[in-house]
């Protein structure tokens, strides 16, 4: 009984991989200067990050409507899938999980909506693993367990170039509540348990780079790695080079989804890594 895997565009899964693994990705919506763009389709990420600092009105992000998901699920069932697993970005960051839960209701339990408690490839790696299992016809329970397994072993860290965008977006409570950091700092965050936790700050990119490298090295042997950035591809490549360790699968270098980039700003740098099972 085949299982379909669905996710949204915040998973940042490269197109070729998505096609190879038969993952169905629903694009989130970016609203820029009053116009709607489908994330990753109607506007290139590179172009977005170039424009971002100059935008008078901060862009907003929206999920695809419940209707869109509803229609997708119907289509999938029509194509012969009995079970659908729809894995999404943490509830805290987006309303997509709720929208999908609503869309799933009429289908009588055949659709399992999962909060990955993660973002970008922290979510993407869970989705890929589920898709691999689904392709080899694993039963539902097994797939669900594998998702949980990857979730427990994935680590996501990032350095933001500035607190500005996070502050503007209002999505993260500690960035809203700050009394006005007088020194300009670059915040470091870890995405864990569905939240973005602030783990100290740095003042310089050099120090931030060193810290990312050190965090990466301290994780030990990895199964999967993705270097994440928002228009900072050179640095992402340098970080990978500095890491200099052989990996079981090719690492990705990803310019993150605009739905994250809006809140994080350009020149962000980080990684998502799945630690090897012991």
């Amino acid at each position: 009984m085949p299982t379909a895997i669905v996710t949204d565009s915040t998973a940042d899964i490269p197109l070729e991989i998505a096609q190879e693994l038969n993952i169905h990705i629903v694009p989130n919506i970016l609203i820029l200067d009053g116009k709607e763009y489908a994330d990753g389709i109607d506007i290139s990420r590179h172009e977005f990050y170039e424009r971002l600092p100059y935008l008078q009105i901060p862009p907003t992000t929206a999920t695809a409507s419940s209707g869109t998901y509803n229609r997708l699920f119907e289509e999938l069932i029509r194509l012969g899938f009995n079970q659908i697993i729809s894995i999404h970005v943490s509830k805290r960051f987006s309303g997509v999980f709720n929208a999908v839960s609503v869309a799933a209701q009429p289908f009588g339990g055949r659709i399992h909506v999962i909060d990955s408690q993660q973002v970008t490839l922290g979510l993407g790696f869970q989705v890929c693993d589920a898709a691999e299992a689904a392709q080899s016809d694993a039963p539902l329970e097994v797939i669900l367990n594998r998702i949980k397994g990857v979730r427990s072993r994935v680590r996501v860290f990032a350095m933001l170039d500035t607190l500005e965008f996070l502050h503007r977006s209002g999505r993260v409570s500690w960035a809203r509540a700050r009394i006005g950091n007088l020194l300009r700092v670059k915040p470091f965050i870890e995405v864990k348990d569905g939240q973005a936790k602030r783990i100290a700050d740095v003042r310089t990119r050099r120090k931030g780079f060193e810290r990312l490298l050190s965090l990466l090295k301290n994780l030990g042997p990895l199964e999967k790695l993705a270097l994440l950035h928002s228009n900072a591809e050179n640095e992402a490549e340098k970080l990978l080079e500095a890491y200099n360790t052989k990996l079981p699968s090719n690492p990705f270098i990803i310019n993150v989804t605009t739905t994250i980039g809006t809140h994080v700003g350009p020149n962000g740098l980080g990684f998502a890594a799945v630690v090897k099972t012991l």
Partner: protein
Amino acid sequence: MEPESQITKRREFYGKRAIDGQALKKLIEASLIWLRTNQEIVNALNVFPVPDGDTGTNMVLTMQAAYDEIQNSGDSNFGKMIHGVAHGALMGARGNSGVILSQIWRGFARCVGESETLDGETFVRALSEARHTAYKGVVRPVEGTILTVIKDAAIAAEDALSETGNPILLLEKVISAADESVEHTPELLDVLKEAGVVDAGGKGLYYILEGMLRYIDGLPLDTSLTTVQPLSSLVLDNSLESIEAGQDWEVIVDFRSQGAIDMVNFYNDLENMGTSIQFGEGDGIYRLHIHVPNENYYAPEDYIKNLGIVTKVAKENLVDQMERQTNGCLEQEPEIMPLEPGKIGVIAVVPGSGIARIFASMGVAAIVKGGQTMNPSTEEIIREIDKLPTDNVIILPNNKNIFMAAKTAAEFSAKNVTVIPSRTIPQGLSAMLCLVPDGDIEIVVSDMQAALEDVETGEITTATRTVELDGVKANKGDIIGLLNGKMVVSSHRLDQACLELLNFAHADHFEIITLFYGKDVTVQEALQMQDTVRSAFPEQEVEIHEGCQPHYHFIVSIE
């Protein structure tokens, strides 16, 4: 002067083989007064020609706290009283010299125990214990400091015991040895020799001991009435937080005297004219410094004209000076976010309200202002530790002269308190970046320690005297730059000094240059400096922030 008979009686009293608690109180008071009288002489012995030399003031405040502890006690038990002295000194200790001084009292008191009186033999043993306790309290003891002086004093006392058990005679030997030891310190510590000074802490200890003997011998302790200080020790910068009511002008009169000056009448007359009277002598001239109200604008020079030949009169408008200095530096309390119970709380010691605001914005849990000497007492730090609703506390002293008081406070507290050895403000800020309030205390501490190395610190100030250190020559009044505590540049101009300092530090290899401007720098001057630095370092980000610190025109962080 006291009558001869009274002095003789006193010598007899102390010459008895036993000194009690009340006699001790008198001696402590005498030490305090004599040290205070010579406070500025000790302050001027700062190795670096920087205006925050405050060993004298720190030791006075420490002795004041020691005396305050026993001032109202009528107890005649020597042991009880000396323990009071030690406790007061411990709580009131300011600066490293103050802390070491408190260790000296502690060792002394421990040896005395509960004895009713002190005799010569116990005095000698106690001095020895004082010396050992002082050395033990310092992680890396350095010879040529107050430690050497207490050591030499203790040894001299031991030697003298074979000749006499008379406490006064022993004290005389001790003081003489201390004096020699102080004079010898430049031979033991190169920086002292280079700077041409003896060790300040050692000198302070000498005055403390000498004060006791002067009291016993009936000599005056409030010397300002009978002798004159060296010119170089006059403190003429009016870095007051507020001027005394009614004082409008600072007047300085230089003159040559036509005969001896009746100091007692001289002071009385001047006290009728104004306040902040200082009188110095040097290079054949006398210099009088006084603050007067408007109606006495001409009074000082007219008065002096009757005593001698006036060679120069300088006047400065105090109110205007005060207004220019105050800048935007309001002494308001910074907005500190209340610490959530159980989270890690950081206490930072800061020299200015602007810097306090920056630490507050980074999530510090409490600020300790250094006070007059920028060095808080052990007690002030303990108080802040106690106030925080958490057991895990980190202290950032941000000044190497505050480190020991912070450590003492940490040891004294039952809480889990760690002192991160930040020596400068930029180091302290670098450590603050690592704060994760709900993180693992050991990881945060380790991260903070490592962060101290991430930043280079520059300090720009005006040389308080002419000196040559590490091959850099500076004249009094020159602008000097220190890099990580070492004097590296000297210039006539502020902007030039800054640029030279930044060049010396290879700032072009770093990312951010931050300038914290002090109380005496206006916003315009700071903005100008920012522009100057930006032009010279186009690849670096240049930030300026109001620091409001005294003495240092700019504190620079290079990272």
